[in-house]
């Protein structure tokens, strides 16, 4: 292992000791539950706690996972010097930390480090200033930690949407702009259920099961318009960093949010502008291509493990191209038929 790896590993251990000390001295300020894992957050200053509201289910039991977020620039005294880090990539950070069974991420533009120890279930965010957070943080708060906690619990977070019917459901995967969120919105407005439109927690043990990650869904104005929604007091909230509205699915479809779905297939949407929605088989490699790259890009942590898990899912589940029609009700009806036919 080279000197950069040792520097990153030593810094991670130091930071996690600091977190342990701070967490033993300060109370949890917010607790919640994601896919059965209870999580507690403590911040050195109140920054991200409000972003957690409405995103998760309430705490259901003892808190096993604790995260400390430091905004005091503590890291500036201890982090490896920049000269040491030149040439280091995100994948290197994964690798260096995985070698000592830790998880971590470094976001260079804001000098933000995050570490997590899967053994102790303690994590720390080291941010240089309360306002020095990435633009996606308010709508996806603590995403890396939640991913690492899920991995420690044997689950995987995927960049995918979901639709379901009577407990059975499909993952909807593909690159940005392929129609994931629009398809989800069309479905929930016409009687289907969902556990999320962007990220989803997947448990591959026995039956593949999907659980909610974040409870809110997002869509731009034109996407809302396509499914017949107009902005009103229920959905007019500030635009996120992608110029999309972020809102609670229960605001527009009170019965659509469910807490789990048994996954029967992966659908790969394509906008075709045809009148009817159709399906055609997709290969295991096409499923992998839809799931792995975007998940690996968007979520930090052990990307090697993420790729392996995406490959396992791709091998073990059916995949179909979803050639989207233009009528949201028709799209939903076809997906409903598809799920209904599955055994």
């Amino acid at each position, binding site marked *: 292992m080279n000197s950069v790896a040792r520097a990153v590993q030593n810094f991670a251990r130091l930071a996690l000791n600091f977190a342990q000390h701070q967490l033993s001295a300060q109370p949890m300020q917010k607790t919640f539950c994601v896919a059965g894992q209870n999580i507690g957050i403590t911040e050195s200053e109140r920054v991200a706690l409000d972003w957690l509201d409405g995103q998760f289910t309430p705490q259901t039991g003892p808190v096993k996972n604790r995260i400390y977020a430091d905004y005091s620039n503590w890291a500036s005294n201890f982090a490896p010097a*920049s000269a040491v880090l030149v040439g280091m*990539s995100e994948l290197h950070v994964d690798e260096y930390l995985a070698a000592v069974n830790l998880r971590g991420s470094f976001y260079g533009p804001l000098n933000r480090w995050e570490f997590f120890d899967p053994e102790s279930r303690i994590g720390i965010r080291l941010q240089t200033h309360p306002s020095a957070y990435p633009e996606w943080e308010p709508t996806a708060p603590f995403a890396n930690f939640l991913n690492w906690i899920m991995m420690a619990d044997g689950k995987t977070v995927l960049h995918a949407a979901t639709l379901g019917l009577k407990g059975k459901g499909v993952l909807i995967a593909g690159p940005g702009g392929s129609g994931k969120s629009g398809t989800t919105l069309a479905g929930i407005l016409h009687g289907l259920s969902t556990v999320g439109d962007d990220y989803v927690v997947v448990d591959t043990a026995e039956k593949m099961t999907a659980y909610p990650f974040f409870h809110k869904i997002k869509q731009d104005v034109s996407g809302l318009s396509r499914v017949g929604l107009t902005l009103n007091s229920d959905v007019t909230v500030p635009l996120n960093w992608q110029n999309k509205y972020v809102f609670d699915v229960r605001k527009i479809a009170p019965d659509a949010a469910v807490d789990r779905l048994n996954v029967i297939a992966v659908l790969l949407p394509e906008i075709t502008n045809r009148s009817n929605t159709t399906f055609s088989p997709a290969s295991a*490699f096409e499923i992998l291509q839809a799931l792995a790259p975007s998940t690996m890009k968007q979520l930090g942590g052990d*990307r090697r493990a993420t790729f392996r898990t995406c490959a396992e899912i791709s091998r073990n589940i059916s995949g179909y191209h979803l050639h989207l029609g233009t009528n949201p009700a028709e799209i939903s009806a076809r997906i409903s038929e598809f799920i209904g036919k599955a055994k």
Partner: protein
Amino acid sequence: MSTASVELNTPDVIQEDFGDDMVLLNLRSGEYFNFSERSRAFIDAILKGVSPAELIGSIAEVNNDVGKEAENFYTLLEKHALIRPASTPVVPHDATLATSILAAGATFPFDFYDDLSDLIAADPIHDVAPEAGWPVRA
């Protein structure tokens, strides 16, 4: 070309099999590859210890043009750092291996994808100014 055996360039390269296809991901470059038909059969053979040089020779004896295709394909495997020389002994093969590789398909497809490469290429940590104390975008 060496007549020695080769192996997968682990741990940088991850292999996943999907029936008739083999996917290799190079975590150093972010590139990933889908091999099928003759490509899959050729890689299977060399990862079992058959000498690439000897195998290409055997294929060329059956069909010289296909032998050249196999050589080009092998050069790409090396260029993308998917394989490396191994210290294990070469596994002997007979002429049926070359004919079975030809029968596996019509071409040596080399399908590669670089949509993960920006995890490396656009890495925020790469272009930094060391004298700034903390990494900043150069």
